[in-house]
């Protein structure tokens, strides 16, 4: 069975081996003189205070959320775009309705003030 994804799989493996080899070579030939100060977390010379887990703004989450919805919906459009040449005008209109629904979501988030960086 000739599967074109075999090539991609091989590329994945080789693409992982090349940087891994670079890291291993540098690990072998680089000097190792660890000390506690060197190993400490870098904060421009300040002592680290508290845990690493600062509370993040939920704002980051909202962009990921909006992105998730848009990502899934645009992915849906790819088969439509490939088949577009053979489709009737009706199918084109359907795709455009789909995009308009997508934009409605964007407008809602915009109106809610969720796209502002506060």
């Amino acid at each position, binding site marked *: 069975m000739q599967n074109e994804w075999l090539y991609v799989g091989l590329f994945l493996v080789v693409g992982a081996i090349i940087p891994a080899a670079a890291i291993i070579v540098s690990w072998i030939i680089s000097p190792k003189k660890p000390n506690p100060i060197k190993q400490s977390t870098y904060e421009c010379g300040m002592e680290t205070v508290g845990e690493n887990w600062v509370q993040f703004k939920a704002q980051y989450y909202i962009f990921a*959320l909006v992105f998730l919805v848009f990502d899934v919906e645009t992915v849906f459009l790819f088969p439509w775009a490939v088949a577009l040449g053979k489709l009737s005008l009706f199918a084109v209109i359907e795709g455009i309705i789909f995009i308009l629904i997508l934009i409605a979501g964007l407008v809602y988030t915009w109106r809610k003030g969720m796209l502002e960086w506060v």
Partner: protein
Amino acid sequence: MIPLSWYLILSAALFSIGLFGVLSRKNAVAILLGVELMLNAVNINLVSFWRYGDVSMMAGQVFAIIVFAVAAAEVAVGLALVISVYRRLDTVIADEIDMMKW
């Protein structure tokens, strides 16, 4: 060639592992992780039925795509609920979320 049974057994096993995660995990986010595993098991089934049936019938692939959309919607709303609860009650442990008990 790979017989269909291999895919079905794999997806049944993945589904059971997901179910175990959903039932046994404390953290609400981890429960959603288990749900993702279950949805993926379903998708494996759908795609393998498409491949092993008549490939010109696209129903299997279309259903798999709809499952992608449902998974995305579930994650979006589910995680939003978890975050909302976390902001009110300061916990993500599913057993401690008991505002609707009475």
